[in-house]
């Protein structure tokens, strides 16, 4: 078992844990942040599978723009005086 395989398993298990957290958490903004963390961990696993093109795309779109769109939706629909 090499060090890369251990990293692979740790990243995969962390993704599943954050996935369960993202679904079961109470606040919506926490759910979105956990989704961003899953995207970032997916970038690591794409790099371990020798897919640099996919990793770059996922890093820009998955963890950057999608998170921004989610946060803007929550920001524009919050009630006055409420924190998101």
């Amino acid at each position, binding site marked *: 078992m090499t060090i890369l395989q251990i990293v692979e*398993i740790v990243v*995969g298990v962390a993704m*599943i844990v954050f996935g*369960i957290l993202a*679904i079961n958490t109470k606040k919506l903004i926490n759910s979105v942040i956990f*989704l961003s963390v899953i995207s970032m961990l997916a970038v690591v696993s794409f790099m371990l599978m020798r*897919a640099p093109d996919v990793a770059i*795309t996922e890093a820009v779109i998955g963890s950057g723009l*999608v998170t921004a769109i989610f946060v803007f*939706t929550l920001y524009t629909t919050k009630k006055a005086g409420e924190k998101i």
Partner: protein
Amino acid sequence: MIQYLSIALMLVGIYGLLSQRNMIKLIVSLNIFEIGLNIFIVSIGFVKDGLAPILTSNHNSSALLYVDPLPQAMVLTAIVIGVGITALALALARKLYKTHGTYELDEMEGE
């Protein structure tokens, strides 16, 4: 090993789609499902000790062992379609919030 874990991640996404009643949570679950599926598709093209599918001056011949470029190309387009789907779903959710004042599907009142 990452292949089994990606299938498990897909199952987590399906569980979220089945058990949640909040629209934002449903869209988050859809995104988790999509990430798991993308990792699965890339993993079926992985070759042990393969190189990244780019010719450079160090790895300069196509006779060397490369990983499969076809699943990577499919996933590259799938990620960009994913952001389109997410944006459309969130626009619908925002429209529904404006008429009903809530994201919970159970609390919406029918006409």
